């Protein structure tokens, strides 16, 4: 399985992934990035803030850039209420 490195860039700076994740393909890496963003935002929300200005930058084993997933892509913000 290929290894992907998901570097986090957000309000707390750059958190480099030194370990990497073994995932089947790029689609799985994108899925993992979305999960990671949601996990982080969930935590931030419990502290009373929500910073959608971050992104996850996905690289391969050779350090090549593959794709980027922005925090905004991972969440659909709405205000529907019941009316």
């Amino acid at each position, binding site marked *: 399985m290929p290894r992907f490195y*998901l570097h986090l860039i957000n309000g707390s700076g750059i958190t480099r992934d030194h370990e990497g*994740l073994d995932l089947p393909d790029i689609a799985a890496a994108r899925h*993992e990035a979305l999960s*990671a963003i949601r*996990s982080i935002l969930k935590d931030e929300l419990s502290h009373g803030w929500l910073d959608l200005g971050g992104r*996850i930058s996905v690289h391969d084993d050779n350090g090549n850039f593959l794709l980027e997933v922005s925090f905004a892509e991972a969440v659909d913000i709405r205000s529907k209420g019941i009316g």
Partner: protein
Amino acid sequence: MKLRQRDDVSAEEEKALRAIIQPPQHIGARRVVIREGEPLNRSTLLCEGLMGRFKDMRDGERQISELHVPGDFLDLHSFTLKRIDHGIVTLTDCVMCAASHEALNGLTEDFPHLGRLLWMTTNLDAAIHRALTVSLGRRDSVSRTAHLLCELHVRLGVVGMAEEDEYPLPLTQTDLAECMGLSAVHMNRVLRDLRERKLATFRRGRVHIHDLAGLRWLAEFTPEYLFLEKKPR
């Protein structure tokens, strides 16, 4: 022996317990040792390495509900329950020994005190699970991770595998994330946070604790639920 931390174990009892433990088996890392629901006629003692109790979700996400360190029985509760409700996986290369339920039955009849001590170890597991429940329910990602690191420090210390300010933990960030209900990338961020707060560093399979009091305070960790005291049981 882990049991001696919490009660006196006579030489005769120790001999009887050792007599029912089968020869050690080596198992490689990342192997499911016991499957959920598998009928069991033996219980297993972990001698070396780290194992995890886990449950996989339909979407492939895994929750590790307990980490096991050397000296732990992995599934003593299967003695009464006859099967277990989760899987057990090796997280590193491991050495384990089995004890048949038949032999355990004989042991508990001949040595009721030993029987109570083995019962106690399942109670200890339950206390560890309750602590995890509180962590997952009410602590934020950094505090709950700090709590786990504090707990492992104590549990490994009991079996002589931890020093005052560091201990080996040959796990991946994914393993830790699966214990804590977080994504691996999030766990990376959490560990960076603990490092920057100068509380603990997890690097290359070792945990270095820089500020034990501070780490315990953040985690709201006290070792009471690990019942380290010696009492007649």
